[in-house]
């Protein structure tokens, strides 16, 4: 169900829903809306929408920027940090798109940036309803300095195939189908994601892949090998902008939530250690094994694609990729978009 706060009654979303014949209900506040992942709540509340991705100390951060226009996700991934971070289950959408546009334009004047909507929600899960790609893509098309990323676990790319693909990147989080089934509830299957990526690549979009979080399980090697092989068979290397790889990490309270909501999860079958930023991670030895394995498999097929680790220790970079990318501003200079923009 869609609910619109009365303060957002003049927003663009009302026109979109009316034109599409979608039912919606006006409410006085969020309290009137059942807190369910199936509900969308449009609000006009003030927010700072564009900001730098929150990094933690001691682990390398790529200086990514995020647009937090949507908070909440219809998917229900076992490992999702939003379970701890947000105080609601419903999908909250801010209606002040003019302000979002201003903030993006303002950012573009400060330098070259990579920006995306995938921090507090899935970028495309509700694109057929909210049509945010129709808003973002024209804004980005006018800005040479911004590379905009739609990050998703859906196959909902239909609307993207009507737009200018310049400076737009569409990316997918990937895991073996058995992990998708067990841990990534309500998301598109692995094959659907890869098919959607192939469509976008064929259309002309640059695509990206996030092996994040890698999850260790009995068939880890075969599972991830098969995913990488499938990717290689469907996606041309020149369409791939980058691939990120990182193992499951979490704030300590998350496992209690997993025990409550997802008993039997693979996440409960491993132990973790507290690491330098206070987050829990696999023991470094296992972590490096997992990362090394995936890097090696990818390199067998795609020797040139830019690979990076999200929030990993400099020693892991040196061990596995042979260099330390440095802190944020130095790190981001390694991305292909940064080279193109110079």
């Amino acid at each position, binding site marked *: 169900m869609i609910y619109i706060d009365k303060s957002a009654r003049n927003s663009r979303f009302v026109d979109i829903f009316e034109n599409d014949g979608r039912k919606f209900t006006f409410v006085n506040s969020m309290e009137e809306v059942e807190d369910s992942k199936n509900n969308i709540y449009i609000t006009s509340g003030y927010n700072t929408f564009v900001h730098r991705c929150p990094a933690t100390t001691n682990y390398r951060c790529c200086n990514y920027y995020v647009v937090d226009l949507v908070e909440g996700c219809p998917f229900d991934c076992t490992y999702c940090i939003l379970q701890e971070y947000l105080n609601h289950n419903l999908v909250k959408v801010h209606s002040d798109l003019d302000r979002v546009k201003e903030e993006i334009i303002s950012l573009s004047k400060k330098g070259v940036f990579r920006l995306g909507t995938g921090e507090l929600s899935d970028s495309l899960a509700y694109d057929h309803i909210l049509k945010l790609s129709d808003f973002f893509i024209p804004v980005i098309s006018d800005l040479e300095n911004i590379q905009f990323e739609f990050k998703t676990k859906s196959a909902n790319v239909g609307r993207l195939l009507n737009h200018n693909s310049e400076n737009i990147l569409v990316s997918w989080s990937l895991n073996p189908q058995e992990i998708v089934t067990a841990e990534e509830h309500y998301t598109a299957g692995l094959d659907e994601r890869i098919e959607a990526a192939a469509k976008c690549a064929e259309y002309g979009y640059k695509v990206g892949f996030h092996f994040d979080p890698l999850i260790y399980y009995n068939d880890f090697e075969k599972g991830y090998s098969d995913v990488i092989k499938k990717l290689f068979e469907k996606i041309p290397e020149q369409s791939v902008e980058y691939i990120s790889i990182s193992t499951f990490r979490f704030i300590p309270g998350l496992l209690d939530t997993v025990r409550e909501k997802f008993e039997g999860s693979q996440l409960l079958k*491993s*132990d973790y250690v507290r690491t330098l930023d206070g987050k829990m991670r696999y023991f470094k030895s296992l972590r490096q094994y997992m990362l090394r394995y995936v890097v090696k498999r990818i390199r067998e097929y795609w020797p040139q694609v830019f690979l990076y680790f999200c929030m990993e220790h400099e020693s892991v970079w040196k061990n596995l990729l042979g260099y330390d990318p440095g802190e944020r501003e130095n790190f981001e200079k390694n991305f292909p978009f940064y080279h193109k923009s110079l």
Partner: protein
Amino acid sequence: MKLITADQTTNIDRATFNWIFPDRKEETGADDITYPPALWEKKGIYYQLNYFSHCADEYFFLENCGFFDALSFSVDFYGTKNLNIIELSNLLFLAEHFGYDISDLDLFERYGVAGDRKVKTLRELKDLSEDIKEYLAVKNFSFKTLNLLTRLPENLISILDSYLLTENPSVSDFKKMVTKLFDMKEEIPQDLATYDKNELEKVFLSKNITQENFLSEMKDIAGEMKPVKIKNLDNFETDILELSFKINSPEDFEKILNQMFEKKKVIKNIYRVMEKYDLH
């Protein structure tokens, strides 16, 4: 409240209201009774509210009294400050037996029982074995642990039962065991229903065999450096080792330095092991 004689009440139920766990000493000797036991009546049945094991000649009868008043009388009689978790569970069962919702009773809220999840956990404690109940009654566990415990399958509850009898664990160890059993329940053979330390350790070890093997090797080697202690303070996220020792004289200091020099190969071995595990 009025005083009535035993022959005025033919139908006294002494068991239903007995929420006390485990049975208290005063319940065993008739001499301990100071006042006649109290009765509350519903649908012709007289429920004894205290001194549950005693048949008396006279009783105090609570007239015109609702269920919650009767329950409050019974709980107040024994004191509400130190109810254990099993007694709370029994009180919940009692309320629900008579068709009442405990949200109307602030006693439960005082003990942190609020919300459906906690009520459900409390309800399910009732079905645990007497040994486990006795353990829980004297220890102090969070609802988080109790919730996991009540969601264990039957064979794992039996394992926990025999674990208690075999190991008499600390609260911390018991809590760890409950969590491990819960996390690994699909991996534990379904026909295993008693505590088998080796069998369980084999299953639990699979959670992090790499780390366990590494730490085991490290422990052996680091032990060779005694009395110098060797530690890594960040779970081996870095390869920095901290060496520490205590001295109380310059001679001690010199002695330890000499020992360290003689054993410098130990440090090489430690870094060799760390390298083997991709940690250096």
